[in-house]
């Protein structure tokens, strides 16, 4: 196994005043290996989402470095950072965040369009992804005609279709009932195993945690425990 993403003493503080400053992420140094299925766990406000945002280049650290494939993404900005995210990172959000005016197929296809993938290849990959996430025949439906679980499967397909090096999922099951949530996690785990794809997701759900291969426990922005099963 080789390191895909790592952080070195990464900090994200909110506020300038010493007394009121919130240390959302404080001196976190972790390294995620290729093919890992890692959960960042902790209570609400422990810094899970902030850490995921830092890992994904959505937010800039106050200090420290975030390296993905030996590139310090904390130093990037603008179009360069957008292109880097597009080509290297897949995102799955708690609220699915699909484009409402696009069908499931078009939501999946959009990121490949940004990458300049040819139309025939886009169509092939969309069909393949819909099959892998179990949404065959539902590609023409818009998000509002899909259940929460189905929408999140579209989000998984969207995150994976560009073949990113890592997929970051922020509480992907939080808006799903437990049965659907576990089914989604099983799907992610299956894709992780079949494609050796690296998944990092945040959760505070014990049942979901149990499916992770590695648990990084956060408390008040600091790594409290890093355990591999």
């Amino acid at each position, binding site marked *: 196994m080789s390191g895909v993403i790592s952080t070195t003493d990464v900090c994200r503080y909110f506020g300038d005043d010493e007394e009121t400053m919130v240390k959302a992420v404080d001196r976190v140094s972790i390294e995620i290996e290729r093919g890992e299925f890692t959960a960042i766990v902790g209570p609400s406000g422990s810094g899970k989402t902030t850490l995921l945002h830092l890992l994904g280049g959505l937010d800039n650290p106050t200090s420290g470095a975030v390296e993905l494939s030996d590139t310090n993404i904390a130093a990037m900005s603008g*179009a360069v950072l*957008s292109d880097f995210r597009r080509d290297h990172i897949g995102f799955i959000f708690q609220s699915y965040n699909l*484009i409402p*005016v*696009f069908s499931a197929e078009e939501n999946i296809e959009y990121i490949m*369009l940004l990458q300049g993938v040819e139309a025939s290849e886009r169509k092939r990959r969309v069909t393949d992804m819909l099959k892998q996430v179990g949404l065959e025949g539902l590609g023409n439906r818009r998000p509002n005609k899909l259940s929460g679980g189905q929408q999140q499967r579209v989000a998984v397909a969207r995150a994976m279709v*560009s073949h990113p090096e890592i997929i970051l999922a922020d509480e992907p099951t939080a808006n799903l009932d437990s049965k659907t949530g576990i089914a989604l996690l099983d799907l992610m785990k299956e894709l992780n195993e079949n494609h050796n794809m690296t998944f990092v997701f945040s959760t505070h759900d014990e049942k979901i945690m149990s499916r992770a291969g590695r648990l990084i426990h956060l408390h008040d922005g600091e790594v409290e425990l890093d355990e591999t099963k």
Partner: protein
Amino acid sequence: MLLLKLAFRNIFRQRRRSLLTALSLTGGYILCVFSFSLSEGSYSNAISFFILDHTGHIQIHLDDYLLRPKIHKTIDDPQGLSELLDANEEIESHTLRVFAPAISYYEKDNSPAQVIGVALDRERSTSTLAAKISAGEYIDNALDAEGYYSAMIGAGIANSLNIGLGDELILISQGADGSIANDIFIVKAIVGNRASPDRTTVFLPLIAAQEFLSMYGSVHEVSILLKDDGEARVQAAALQDQLPELTVDPWQTVESTFYQSMQADKQGNNFFMGFIVFIVFVGVLNTVLMSVLERTREFGVLKAIGSRPLKIALMITLETGLLATLSLVVGILLSLPLIAWFTFTGIELAEPMDVGGILMSHLTGELSLFVFGMPLLFIVVFALFISIPAGMRAARISPTEAMRSN
């Protein structure tokens, strides 16, 4: 293509709001087109009216005759000038004229008159004089049995002197050589009506006027009708180069008062159009900004998954451009029959309207690329301009902050 599809679908996301915005764009466009058509049509009609009535596209005089007319400021070789103008392929026709103030008499009545001697055949093909005859017939150069020339008189003189067809009109004026000019002319035609601009004019054959005013073959004015309406300035400049001893003016100079008032009125019209466009765009700006504000989270997601900021700004521009284009297509489809009717049928006014000093009782519009194109250009440019701040706002959205919003 997918970006275009996204923009198109986003327009229909808030159907009612988009429809209202489109209606204001369409309505604004139609108002602008109508306003332009009315202005261009009215002025085209007014210009055609005086160009064909008497001015022509170009006039030639000696020195400053146009500003300070004097009987002795004459063009002394009209024959040679006519030959030059006849050979010019840009010129449709031209006519020669002499002018003098006079007093007209009939029996015990008298009335001031403006004598205009016209080259009868050339005048017929250059101005609408023949068409303005309301009684009698267009005169010729022949003397009658008693040795009198014929005259066409304005309806105002006919009314003041109570003179009719076949009656003898006496004119008294001053000749170019300082002598007293007086002669008898037989009224053969009445021109226009009592409200016509030439109600106090007496039209004589050119040769008769030259003899009457002792002008010995010279003329005061050459009026030229061009084949192309828009070439007056260019052709006037070209003729001026050929005729350095004379003064050649396009109709814009000859009718400078009208031309200046037309230009001022057109500027007022542009201001009116700007005002309409401003009102329309306050509405459009509101729609575009609301649309961006509502979709903050979505833009955050688009940025998170790799859309470049510029692409997001482009999407907003595309949406605004599409909405404006759709509205303008509807606007063109609706305004085309309206303007066509206005141009070919027009509106009959109960009271005449003053258009740059010319009273017009029948208003017609103009159907041209300019009338449709100018407001279209205005609206497209402003729509794109408005999308810039909205697009910049969307492009600057931070994904993390956007995804925290609802």
